[in-house]
């Protein structure tokens, strides 16, 4: 599985089609990948495991989410006012 992730990350072009979000509104796609990355970091980090698999979510949310949204959420996380559950 780790090799698949490494190959997937190496061959990354752009965020692929996600069947969970097949329609026009991709807001949730962006938000959920942002959440999944930070949750992945938190849970794998707590277990002391390799954090490389989490990079997939980071690549996807970096591709999809507007830069201003990412900055706003990063600031909110630092302040402790981020609305999502990580």
């Amino acid at each position, binding site marked *: 599985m780790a090799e698949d992730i490494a190959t997937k990350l190496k061959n990354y*072009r*752009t965020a692929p*089609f996600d069947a969970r979000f097949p329609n026009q*509104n*991709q807001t949730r796609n962006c938000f959920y990948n942002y959440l999944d990355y930070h949750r992945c970091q938190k849970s794998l980090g707590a277990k002391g495991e390799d954090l490389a698999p989490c990079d997939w979510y980071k690549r996807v949310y*970096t591709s*999809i989410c*507007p830069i201003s949204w990412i900055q706003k959420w990063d600031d909110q996380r630092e302040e402790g006012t981020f609305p999502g559950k990580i």
Partner: protein
Amino acid sequence: MAHPSQLGFQDAASPVMEELLHFHDHALMIVILISTLVLYIIVAMVSTKLTNKYILDSQEIEIVWTVLPAVILILIALPSLRILYLMDEINDPHLTIKAMGHQWYWSYEYTDYENLGFDSYMIPTQDLLPGQFRLLETDHRMVVPVESPIRILVSAEDVLHSWAVPSMGIKMDAVPGRLNQTAFVTSRPGLFYGQCSEICGANHSFMPIVIEAVPLEHFEKWSTVMLQDA
């Protein structure tokens, strides 16, 4: 792009727009034929000297002018639905670009690999070079590789805007807090113009969109230069 005294659509720059153009020709031809027939019948009815006060009904013609319109509607609906589903096909994009609407300019973000972002302001009329188009040119164009499927995510930072490029058959509302997805493929290299299509304040008419479709190597060189300049 649009030209003076234009009646029809702009030349198609994407496969979807070609389909839409042909469908429009098909539907318009049907409309013209029906209108001509009806106009002829009206003129014929009004200008005849013959009268007949004793025809009460006729089953045959009633059947004809019920079934024939139904058949015509089906002939319009089938190509229409075909294009609708064609536009909704799952595609595998090569590149994702975000177009963010502001008052009163667009900003484009290319963040698949590096963090490239830039603003695209209209060139004021007094600063245009000879041959450039009034109210349509921008200082930085959205450059894309030609013949590659591109995913565009449209949003806004302040009020409603709408990102439209008629020659590609694209229009997508830019809603603050929402990320709207559309996709396109440019069939040929060139410049494709569009304008903001949702009223957004004083300079709504002055925030155009320009897509520059170039071969992939040129796109790579351009993005390298833009990253260095940023």
